[in-house]
């Protein structure tokens, strides 16, 4: 029994935080109201001033298992999620072996059940071993609960293969998540083509490499009557392409944006800092501004981190040799607060809608909300406290993030899921 007193409750439907007491009994929210009576044996938490929100859900994470457990495991990855106020995730299938069969999916889900304290879902490959040629074992994976198919990290190159996959899998109610990039245009896929790539002397990836595939895959989905979800959009024109297709209303499109694409530009790469090397690459301030606009308008249905851990050894190489990707789970919620909510660029309602409710809807899961009768799935967040992202603070096995050793405003104080208190600071 848990009584949170005077918490400021956030919901996706209102920008106003409502101050209330919340009583949780046996993992269910029993009562919400002012000055609730303290039941006998209840633990009372003074939550005054702090925000109580539903647990976040990240629909795009790389937990690197199986195959790259030196970078991350399901345990360390899900602990990083909890550390950041995230109570559910969807893994990407670019593991080794790739998650392209019922057997592979079954193994991962079994592991997740024992090794994670939060629900861990997974997507499956579109094609066998993500090679873009033969279809993966689509129905077999569906039987185990997979509904999202993606060759994340690589675009399914042959449009005919993707179209057939869409026609086939849509019959099972599955949808497609697209990593959008024409590899022939992208070079070593390290950074945006422009002033910075010229200065650093590295072949860049032009924004059009992304725009082309966004448009292509939406057209394919329209032809197949499929649902396509556009992953980690990085460019202004990419956002505008999605906006245009959504405004037509004759194809089911959803899209996501990652916090780092809202926050950083290619300029941050500076002196070849590999913590800013990711794919799709960081672009320009104009792109960041457009992505923020797209998020506020709802062009982007969800925020997802593309949590991509790599070992310090790998990231300490030169820019070309280092792998793409940054971690995001430990830092996402605090950074969204620090850079957007606190300065008033958007409210908690947007965070809850885009990082908790919509991702769960996308995955066909019940939406978490602070409402009577709901299972307790919530995060208590202190907007006044600070978080310093030291190596020790991070629960991810890797610390390849630009936020390392930075101090940002906001702190995840408590994460509650059902009858468990997953985290308490």
């Amino acid at each position: 029994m848990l009584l949170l007193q005077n918490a400021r409750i956030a919901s996706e439907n209102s920008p106003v935080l409502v101050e209330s007491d919340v009583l949780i009994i046996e993992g269910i929210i029993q009562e919400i109201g002012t000055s609730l009576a303290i039941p006998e044996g209840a633990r009372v938490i003074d939550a005054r001033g702090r925000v109580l929100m539903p647990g976040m859900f990240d629909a795009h994470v790389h937990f690197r298992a199986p195959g790259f457990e030196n970078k991350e495991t399901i345990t360390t990855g899900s602990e990083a999620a909890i550390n950041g106020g995230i109570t559910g995730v969807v893994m990407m299938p670019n593991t080794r072996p790739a998650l392209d069969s019922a057997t592979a999916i079954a193994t991962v889900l079994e592991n997740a059940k024992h090794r994670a304290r939060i629900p861990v879902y997974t997507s499956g490959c579109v094609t066998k071993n993500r090679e873009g040629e033969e279809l993966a074992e689509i129905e077999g994976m569906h039987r185990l609960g997979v509904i999202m198919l993606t060759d994340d990290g690589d675009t399914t190159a042959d449009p005919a293969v993707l179209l057939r996959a869409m026609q086939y899998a849509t019959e099972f109610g599955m949808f497609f998540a697209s990593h959008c990039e024409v590899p022939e245009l992208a070079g070593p896929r390290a950074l945006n083509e422009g002033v910075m790539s010229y200065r650093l002397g590295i072949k860049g990836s032009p924004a059009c490499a992304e725009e082309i595939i966004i448009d292509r895959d939406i057209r394919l989905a329209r032809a197949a009557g499929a649902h396509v979800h556009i992953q980690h959009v990085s460019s202004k024109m990419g956002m505008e392409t999605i906006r245009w297709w959504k405004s037509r209303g004759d194809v089911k499109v959803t899209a996501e944006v990652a916090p780092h694409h809202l926050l950083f530009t290619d300029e941050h790469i500076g002196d070849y800092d590999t913590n800013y090397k990711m794919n799709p690459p960081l672009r320009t301030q104009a792109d960041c501004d457009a992505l923020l606009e797209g998020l506020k308008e709802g062009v982007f249905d969800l925020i997802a981190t593309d949590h991509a851990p790599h070992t310090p050894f790998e990231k300490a190489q030169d820019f070309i040799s280092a792998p793409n990707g940054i971690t995001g789970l430990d830092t996402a919620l605090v950074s969204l607060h620090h850079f957007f909510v606190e300065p008033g660029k958007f409210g908690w309602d947007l965070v809850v809608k885009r990082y908790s409710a919509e991702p769960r809807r996308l995955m066909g899961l019940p939406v978490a909300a602070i409402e009577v009768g709901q299972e307790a799935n919530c995060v208590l967040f202190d907007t006044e406290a600070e978080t310093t992202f030291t190596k020790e603070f991070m629960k991810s096995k890797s610390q390849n993030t630009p936020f390392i050793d930075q101090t940002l405003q906001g702190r995840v104080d408590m994460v509650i899921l059902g009858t468990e208190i997953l985290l308490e600071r």
Partner: protein
Amino acid sequence: MARKDLLDIASLHREEIEFLLDQSTSFKKLFTRSVKKIPALEGKSVLMLFYEASTRTHSSFEVAAKRLSAEVTNFDVAHSSITKGESVRETIETLQAMRTDYIVVRHGHPGLPAMIARQTTASVINAGDGAHEHPTQALLDAFTIKEKFPDPRGKKVLIIGDILHSRVARSTSTLLQKLGVEVAYLGPGSLVPKYGPATIPRFTDYEAAMAWAPDVVYLLRVQMERQDVQFFPNVREYHRVYGITTARLAEIRDKGLYIMHPGPVNRGVELCDAVMDYERSLITNQVENGISIRMAVLDWLTPGGDFPKQEAYAARQQAGSSLLMP
């Protein structure tokens, strides 16, 4: 005012450039003496780490180091396949254990010499890192130009060719601009990026570029090997559109323009054979000046100092990234 490393032109101050050019003048005077060696770097070791083959730059550094009485060692990497950053780091650990004083490094990956510099006490000289920088080439180019134009301010240098992949274009134009020289680019649209420096005019038409009235025409080597895709149809067409043809050489001679090229020259591509006998071709001067410039650089740098540990680098990176916005 001495530094540990020479990694790029972008971070050099004007005074440092002037100093190096002056020193190069003094070293060049030694060349006419019968004994060309001086003991400036006696007892010091210079390690040559060339992941990309380059006879010209390699031997120029070697001669420069030997004239300063340094001991020169070649680290055999040219024939190994060890070119990825991961294995380079293992090499660096070995080099640090050897306590060499100078490392002259050429590698296809931009930023790699800087990475080595952060991890060793040796003075690191970037002898070319991918399409990023080639600082000693820029210095020798500037020195060669200053021999003809002691006050180069306001002079105009037209750089022709593959700007996109050229570290020479980047370093030399940055340096010349620091000396008050005007620079313009000419080349095929596929090789002269629109997002290049805004302060450098960009031509795609030879006649228009000549109308800009350059004092020096600087031809870049067409590097077919660096082109993963085709950037122009063929070398004959390239020569006709962007090369110094016999007819164009006549015009250049009439106008008294100087011609430069970082070498090695693709004859019949960047320029016709007759350019080699042109009295205002500075191509051999560039080669000669390479030695005195590299002597000046080696003499100027100061190896040693604290071993910059990974943590120190990490701290520096954070200092940089704490400029996080918004």
